[in-house]
């Protein structure tokens, strides 16, 4: 393998990894605050691409306006899902909420098959993203650079939001202890809604980037990325934003390099993430950055 080829693969790995990271942050935020795997996250991601698709093609909006509308709509969708499906179950056993999450995911998938038709649709890619840049012998789509930059910017914005603002403080308080936070005057419900909104908007940005990178959208497109990004969040230490980013990069780069170096195993690409997950859960269940929580009896 030549150096150029390696660099090309590496760049691909970084851009895939930053996509994973972006979506994993959403998972990790929701998990951090509710201790719940939001199975519907991948489907919220899918809905965002359809919102943008219809914005551009049906309502003839320019792509940037349509993207912004899609991101806002997806945030509202996330808040709606939380209100309808998770809030009524907040005090019931964890398994009920988990099943509810599975139900939401199933519902969104089936609904979008009915509404948007099950056949894959081509996603319109603006030229800004599609142009190819040549550096020496390596030719890379401009998008490959844009995705990591977007991820890094969003990461810093988010860290600022969580660590330095009042709503961020409320989020951290709720994730530590809901009841105590409530006693201290934190509005738990609106904090959770806010977290869901932010998480879903991140999923939307990730979804739009995903659709630009792999320009074909279909109702089940969110399932695999959703699961893989959850895995990325677990690898990094679930509940930890920086961890989610590290996990996303590890998973993305690992996956691309696996396919690049061992092409005979490329069929097992989807299994790679799960094998990694199980290894992590066995040897370091709290993930790379996660803190150990002692269990009280």
């Amino acid at each position, binding site marked *: 393998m030549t150096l150029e080829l390696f660099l090309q693969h590496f760049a691909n790995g970084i851009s895939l990894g930053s996509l994973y990271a972006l979506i994993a942050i959403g998972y990790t935020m929701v998990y951090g605050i509710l201790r719940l795997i939001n199975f519907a996250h991948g489907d919220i991601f899918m809905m965002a691409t359809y919102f943008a698709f219809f914005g551009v093609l049906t309502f003839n909006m320019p792509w940037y306006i349509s993207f912004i509308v899609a991101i806002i709509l997806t945030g509202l969708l996330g808040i709606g899902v939380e209100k309808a499906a998770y809030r009524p179950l907040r005090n019931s056993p964890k398994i009920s909420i988990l099943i*509810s999450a599975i139900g939401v995911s199933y519902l969104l998938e089936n609904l979008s098959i009915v509404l948007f038709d099950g056949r894959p649709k081509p996603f319109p890619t603006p030229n800004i993203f599609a142009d190819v840049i040549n550096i020496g012998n390596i030719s890379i789509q401009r998008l490959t650079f844009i995705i990591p930059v977007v991820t890094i910017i969003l990461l810093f914005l988010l860290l600022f939001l969580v660590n330095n603002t009042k709503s961020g403080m409320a989020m951290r308080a709720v994730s530590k202890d809901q009841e105590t936070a409530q006693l201290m005057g934190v509005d738990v419900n609106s904090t959770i809604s806010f977290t869901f909104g932010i998480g879903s908007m991140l999923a939307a940005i990730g979804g739009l980037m995903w659709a630009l990178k792999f320009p074909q959208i279909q109702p089940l497109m969110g399932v695999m990325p959703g699961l893989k990004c959850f895995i990325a969040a677990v690898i990094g230490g679930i509940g930890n934003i920086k961890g989610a980013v590290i996990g996303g990069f590890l998973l993305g780069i690992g996956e691309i390099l696996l396919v690049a170096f061992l092409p005979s195993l490329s069929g097992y690409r989807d299994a790679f993430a799960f094998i990694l997950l199980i290894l992590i859960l066995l040897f370091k269940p709290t993930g790379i950055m996660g803190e150990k929580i002692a269990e009280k009896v």
Partner: protein
Amino acid sequence: MKRKKYNIIFSVILIILLFVILYFAKLYLDDYKSRILNLCAIYTILGLSLNLINGFTGLFSLGHAGFMAIGAYTTALLTMPIPIKEQNFFMAPLISPLDKIVWPFLPSLILGGILAAFVAFLIGAPVLRLKGDYLAIATLGFSEIIRVIFTNTQRLTNGALGLKGIPNTTNLFWSFGIAVITLIVMILLINSSYGRAFKAIREDEIAAENMGINLFKHKILAFTIGAFFAGIGGGLLGNLIGAIDPLMFRFFLTYNILLIIVLGGMGSITGTVISAFIITISMEALRFLDESINLGFFTIRGIPGLRMVVFSVLLMMVILFFRNGLMGNKEITLDILANKLSKKPLTKGGVKR
């Protein structure tokens, strides 16, 4: 003691009655209807096996589709006649011992179940140390790994092409016979000391451990037995439909079975049986939503996929408003029925279990 004896006699009579009904059903029902009945029985087996893991032992496992795939492929590969095997494997020949042997149905089914149980045993050793949603995602991951492996082993499973022309051995007697056996095994298991240990683990792991229950042993026992019956159910399903491919065993299949046990009540055997029938039959009954309805003067255009939307809304409604499902963790037992019929005061010790 007397009551117990009556119960056994009564159960035997019920089972004989069931098979007499099945005999006439086989004579008079058309293919489509008997296929639905077969599916009901198979989903009963699958629901019971998942309920043992999820409902009774409280391990939230989502790996059922993988175990079913193992059972279905084993049974199919062992029961297919040799010329059909050659037809199927035109890309690459089937690996050596399998291409020459043809087994009867029952041993193939049992071997399918045993292989699924063996894989569950191997998986269980590391995975069952996890709890709650981590366990869910790890088992989901394993079932996906099994599916990915089956997609890639061209010479063993024919890869993404799947297997076609599997002999349609499953009939009403096979499916209901095995469903009845599963039911009996589950009832005996749940009412044994093992079953009580399972329930103790479900209620509170730490308390159960303090009472001297070996957590790991019981968890892996429930997991393995559940996987065994999942494998058998998968084998029956494959030989009923006649064609299998890896995409059939995606996690949507697990979700369907999950819906059965949620509707029936996590931790209720009778609830699972009732809801397996309700769900399988209503899945077929709702098929009209996908097709056009002709009202004479105008036609309502059918929307393909609407059936599944109605279905997922149902799942959400059950979880949100009837959290305990039809039965919760109660059972309909012969004792309760007998008391209802005779209107006598309760027997000593009551009927509550």
